[in-house]
């Protein structure tokens, strides 16, 4: 026999008929991104313990005016805008940040705060997300410095050697490269913008390049998180070694 019951309005933040714990999706993002932001800010402002032997923290590379001739603050402040901008405008992080920090929406089929004016990415500041490709260009420049640092990390004062820090820096730059070269904007620039690969000059090699970037791009979220962890842990390792809390182990 049918029974009639009532239904409620669903307009306040978090209203949903979903029966699963939808908030579990955003909780790790809030914790990890929030934690990373606090750590990175503190480290950028610290202005010391960023190099040891052949190692240099990725937060401080390229090292600009380390001796404070013209810049009185931490040298990290001069460069962090580049990597930060690349991640903030990244198509994957946009999803994660809009969901976790702006609740726009908090999860699929879960209501947002009612009465909020919405303009998406058509008005300031979010219209600037359209400049993601420029942050990609900057990120490639930073990668050049980080690869240079990773190679130098194998050259100690007494010659070639391998320390734990050398491997940490190498893994970090590999993960950062994978994240950078799986970028959606790069996928567009190398070939995605073409309608016909077969009827354009350099179409076939661009198709191959597009396929490689597409392959990496399928795991863009994975690379985004792994590289975020690796850059934070690399900095932490170098800080601990530089401040004397940890001794770098030489493998070779």
């Amino acid at each position, binding site marked *: 026999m049918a029974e009639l019951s009532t239904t409620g309005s669903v307009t306040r933040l978090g209203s949903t008929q979903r*029966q699963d714990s939808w908030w579990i999706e955003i909780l790790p993002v809030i914790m990890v991104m929030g934690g990373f932001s606090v750590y990175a800010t503190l480290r950028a402002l610290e202005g010391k313990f960023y190099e040891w032997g052949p190692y240099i923290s990725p937060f401080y590379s390229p090292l600009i005016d380390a001796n404070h001739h013209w810049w009185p603050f931490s040298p990290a402040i001069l460069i962090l805008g580049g990597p930060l901008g690349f991640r903030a405008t990244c198509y994957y992080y946009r999803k994660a940040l809009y969901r976790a920090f702006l609740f*726009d929406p908090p999860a699929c089929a879960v209501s947002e705060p009612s009465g909020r004016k*919405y303009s998406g990415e058509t008005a300031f500041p979010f219209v600037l997300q359209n400049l993601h490709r420029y942050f990609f260009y900057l990120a490639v420049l930073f990668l050049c410095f980080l690869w240079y640092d990773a190679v130098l990390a194998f050259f100690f004062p007494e010659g070639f050697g391998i320390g734990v820090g050398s491997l940490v820096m190498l893994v970090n730059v590999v993960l950062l490269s994978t994240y950078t070269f799986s970028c959606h904007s790069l996928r567009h620039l190398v070939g995605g913008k073409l309608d016909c690969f077969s009827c354009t000059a350099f179409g076939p090699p661009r198709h191959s390049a597009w396929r490689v970037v597409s392959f990496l791009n399928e795991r863009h979220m994975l690379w985004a998180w792994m590289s975020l962890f690796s850059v934070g842990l690399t900095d932490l390792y170098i800080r601990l070694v530089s401040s004397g809390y940890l001794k770098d182990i030489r493998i070779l």
Partner: protein
Amino acid sequence: MSDVTMRVFRGDRDGGGPVDYRVALTPGMVVLDALHAIQAHQAPDLAVRWNCKAAKCGSCSAEVNGRPRLACKTRMDALPLDKPITVYPLKAFPVIKDLVTDVSWNYKVNAKIPAFTPRPDVKWKMEQRDVDRVQEFRKCIECFLCQDVCHVLRDHGKKEQFGGPRFFVRVASLEMHPLDSVSRTKLLKEELGIGLCNITKCCTEVCPEEIHITDNAIIPLKERVVDEFYDPLTMLVRKIRGAKRD
């Protein structure tokens, strides 16, 4: 055989509410089977839109336990059976009766999109690598689950300014077609409001055909709009070359 409670929305444009029905579970049962059992034995006037029962016609879209799904593709044994299973109409569209909604707005949006327009001297020969991308988009069954879950339509009600994921997929299938000659980037920016999409990927999550709507359609289209309207370097190069904006 055990029973399960189905909590089904009953009502029309003037309002309504959920009604509970007890339904006997059978092996391999899907939500649409349960709705048919209700129609057959308890509520012959229950309105449900369906056709193929094979997840190919896109008719039986509904919100099952709060998630937009095809009723014919949602197995009962995949749902928690100790609590009532809620079945509601698509929230983003006006209810006609019970689980049937008025999705005609979608066809009005579709009418704004210029159809496939081949070049005048086109040779009807294409290479597979040139149509790989487009073939994925052709899998769309127009169930409108992506439209329903998109918060721009669902929560913000921007039906006047926004086309929705389904039509970005359609535009992508035309824009990336190797033989098409029309540019739809201005339409995307100005009439279909692609800038309102903030890439939260819910459309991709609910697509029963597993089309990578966000990564393969919306983001590439956003990048084409950036080429045309936001990237100063590309705009400068176009100006130097004297190319016209479509």
